[in-house]
């Protein structure tokens, strides 16, 4: 039920955002999160519940890789 589908905002008008889900465009509810075209978002039952930050995603992977390397050495 708590499936969140990642997509990219293409267009925002009023409380509706057009989101690109890997090539499939859908209108979703954008009342819960302030979004702009280009933002990555998580959509659940037709509602944007959160933004997804690509920068943080990259940092997460890097931080864990660093941690794993440290484990390696210890």
């Amino acid at each position, binding site marked *: *039920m*708590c499936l969140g589908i990642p997509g990219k905002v293409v267009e925002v008008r009023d409380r509706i955002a057009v989101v690109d889900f890997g090539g499939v465009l859908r209108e*979703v*509810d954008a*009342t*819960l999160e302030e979004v702009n075209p280009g933002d*990555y978002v998580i959509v659940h039952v037709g509602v944007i519940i*959160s933004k997804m930050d690509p920068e943080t*995603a990259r940092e997460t992977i890097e931080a864990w890789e660093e941690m794993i390397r440290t484990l390696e050495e210890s």
Partner: protein
Amino acid sequence: MDVSAPFRDPGISRLIVGKIAGIAGELDDRVKIMDFCGTHEWTITHYGIRSLMPENVELVAGPGCPVCITPGYYVDVAVKLAMEGVRVFTFGDVYRLPGSSKGAPRNLEEARSEGADVRIVYSVADAVKLSSDGKESVFLAVGFETTAPATLSPIYRGAVPDNLSFIVVHRLTPPITKYVLENYPQSPIRGIIAPGHVSAITGAAEWKFVAEDYGIPVVVSGFEPVDILLSILEILRQVRDGRAELVNEYSRVVRWEGNLRAKGIMRSTCEVVEAGWRGIGFVPESGLRLRKGYSRYDALVRYGVPELSKEAWLEDLPPGCRCAEVTLGMAKPADCPLFRKVCTPERPYGPCMVSSEGTCLIWAKYGGDELLRGLREEFEPT
């Protein structure tokens, strides 16, 4: 660009699995980790993550399937209204969920086959749109914190037409987690993988109590295989070091404070009440009920149906069904004599076989750990 692609990387996965094995080897006893969320259980089972775990690391599914824990009573109410001519909207997962009554129709699918107007929708917005025709309509609204704002936001904004009301069966996840930890100490859970999309709404901070009050490591996790593996690694590190902390592995989506707008809407429209969980019973402060000011959207009020009360609570699992124990992480689907015999994805008998996030349906489709462990032992040189 696929932001999540590195989180599905086999190379990174292998590296983490190696570390998990290393740390598990340093531990003397078994470590039971509960994955709360049905979507996490899907990832774990679909990608065969259990088969990659060392012998002493056990992953158990928790009560994270909102369809499975929806009391049959509310399905009965929806079926009755549907048979009386009210149009019933719901999500696809709920369509086949059995009610508590023995008589037919026992779910919305059967009600529809008997001529009732039952519609599966993808979103509440679809139901709002379809209700512009003025027909008496009810939305059977199940789901955790992730889903509740989708129901409550249109109500809050006054976007719902007068002819549409809601059977609100939204449930809250930290209270049920607390309930499991309080009531089943005989089955020690050493770590919790906290639900990522619930936390997108509630905020990661909501899970602090697991570490602080119960001394159990807790990681808010994303839904890709690398997310889950990292969360398991982090829990094992903490167990080894004798620490218990809250870590937000899913920081690319989950903020510490969550979605403040969504939380504000939930607070404005609903009060938090003691609520029934199928097969489990009444759990304190675990459900949402529409406040008086919004009661015209409450289908129970509108049609004069009593709210399910503690006094009227009945065990509403079908005879022999072990869904409650599966939900609480006490039993595996394969422990149930009905599993894949009487109770199958094609003909679900218990609620955990209905939803795509029900542990029994996931195991029936993708296989549980016994099967995969057996295969691994066969192929790996000892």
